[in-house]
Every structure is written in structure tokens, then in C-alpha cells.
């Protein structure tokens, strides 16, 4: 009986009903993994130690359907299309002032605790106000010089979703 079940499971008879189920399954998988839960392969070290180079994760595109991006959220930021995205952490919202002083993050001149970062370089960035419709994002890896790190304010519209 077990052999019969496995045979039917792995080598099913190609009936019209099976064909319909197969098509529905393929369509559902395509829809889910291209529009809802987009798989991401991480390249680069800008989000270490939270996300390691070469690891996999998913972008949850429904993350901001009913909520707005907030401090500490890790988001996927799109470029011209959706095949290449940046993973960054939101550290400041529109209207807030962001600053780095000797590696310490200050938002509205108040120090922000960042338990997710490992020992970092003493970054210094003069205070700047985040423009309307934008958020300020930065990677978790602060062991690279500030000049070589992709960071800054980005339009909220470019946020593709949250990261699982």
C-alpha cells in the first residue's frame, strides 16, 4: 500500500484533473514567489552580522500595506527594477534629524541603542534632516569606512517591502 502511495505521489497518472492541479500549483507558486514573498540572495556584507553574505531570505511585500515604515525595520529598497535590491535598516523617519558621532547614532540629538551592530568604526556624519516622503537607511555593518557604505535617505516609494 505504501509503495502504491509513493508511486502515485511521485509518478502520478497524467489525467486532465492532474494537469489542472499542476497548472494551478505552478500559477500559485509564481504569484506567491514573484509578488508576495520574493526570495532574495544576499550578496555583500553591508547588513552583517544580521544577514551574512551568501545567505537567503524573503522580501515580504505586504509588510507596509496597513502600516508605515518605522525605526529599526529592515527593508528591501529597489533600483530601476525589482531584480536587484538593497537591504538596509531604517534609522530615521521624515522630519527627524540623523547624525553619527564617533560611531554613535543620534536621532533628534538623542542617542539610539543599536543592539544589532557589532563593534564599529567611529563614524562621523554631521546632522541632517530627513526630507518629507523619505526615510534614512543604513546597513548594520559599521566596520567599513563611512565613505564606502551605501547609506542615506531614500524615497518611501522605493521600499519594496519588509525582510523576513
Amino acid at each position: 500500500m505504501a509503495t502504491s502511495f509513493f508511486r502515485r505521489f511521485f509518478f502520478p497518472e497524467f489525467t486532465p484533473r492532474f494537469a489542472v492541479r499542476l497548472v494551478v500549483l505552478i500559477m500559485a507558486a509564481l504569484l506567491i514567489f514573484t509578488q508576495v514573498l520574493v526570495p532574495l540572495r544576499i550578496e555583500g556584507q553591508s547588513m552583517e552580522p544580521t544577514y551574512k553574505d551568501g545567505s537567503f531570505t524573503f522580501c515580504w511585500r505586504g509588510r507596509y500595506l496597513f502600516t508605515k515604515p518605522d525605526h529599526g525595520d529592515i527593508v528591501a529598497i529597489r533600483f530601476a527594477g525589482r531584480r536587484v535590491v538593497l537591504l538596509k535598516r531604517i534609522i530615521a523617519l521624515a522630519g527627524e534629524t540623523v547624525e553619527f558621532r564617533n560611531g554613535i547614532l543620534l536621532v533628534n540629538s538623542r542617542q539610539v541603542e543599536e543592539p544589532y551592530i557589532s563593534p564599529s568604526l567611529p563614524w562621523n556624519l554631521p546632522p541632517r534632516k530627513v526630507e518629507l516622503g523619505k526615510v534614512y537607511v543604513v546597513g548594520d555593518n559599521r566596520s567599513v569606512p563611512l565613505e564606502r557604505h551605501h547609506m542615506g535617505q531614500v524615497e518611501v516609494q522605493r521600499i519594496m517591502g519588509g525582510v523576513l
Partner: protein
Amino acid sequence: MITVKNMFVATLIALIVGGSAFWLWPNDARAIRSRLAVIEKAGTKKAGEHALEGQLKARKIAELFQDPCQLRVETIKFEGAYSRQQIQDRVAMIRASFTKADVDLYDVGVELSAEKTAMVQGTVRLLGARTGDPMADVQEFRAEMLKDNGQWFFTTVTIVEVLDR
């Protein structure tokens, strides 16, 4: 004999042939994409590449640009007109600074206009190594192209500022 099955097979073959012809038929968008493919091919550098090969590849890239071509980098608020020779020299210099490099273009969109011009938008990703240290960079670009003597050339290239520090 005409049967439903034969009709179905004939329709399927007609669709495949028609679709392939439509997909493979030469057009301006395809010509532009093939020009962009030159950037990927000539921009990529294998470890141990000969200097002469590097110069030839830099020249291939420079030949894609109108002489002069307007270049803009929004992040550093830079804008300037570069001759084809200057572009070749700059490309050769950048390539030489890498021990190996891999250039890929993603999500390329081509929008043609009536006056033999086109707008191109996409994402360029550079993965490489400089003196053993790996480096990765991603930038969004926007470009204007002009058809001149049957060939498409970049007239303006802008590196778009996605993250404003």
C-alpha cells in the same frame, strides 16, 4: 484529414512560429539591448587579463558613446562632457584598478521616441576585487541614446542617486 487534434497542433505551431518571429525580429529596442550587452561583456575582467586586451575592451565601451557625451553623477553633484577618448582612458583606468570584475545590467527598460532617440533605464551591478579585497556596487542609471548612421550611441548618461547621504 482535418480533425480537432490536428487543428490544435497547427494552431500551437503557428503561435510558436509567430511568437518566435515577433520576439527575434530585429528592431531598435533589440539593437539598443545588444549595445548594452557590450558593456557587460567588455566591462567584465578575468583575473590575469593582458593589458592590451584591457585597452581593446575599453575602446569597445568608448565606441558606444557619442563624441562628446554628457555624464552626470547625482550623488557627487558632478556633470561634464567627455570625449570618446577621455571615456576610453577613464574606463581603461577603472578596469586596471580591478584584479577581476563582473558587470551585469538588470531591469533594463527601453523607451523609443519618434526622433531616433531613446531613453534607457536600468540597474548596473559591479562585483569585483581590488588587490584581493572583494567589492560590490549597485547603481541605477538613466541614459539617452541617439541613432546615428544605423547605430545607437549614448548621448547622456546619468547615475541616479537612490540613497542621498
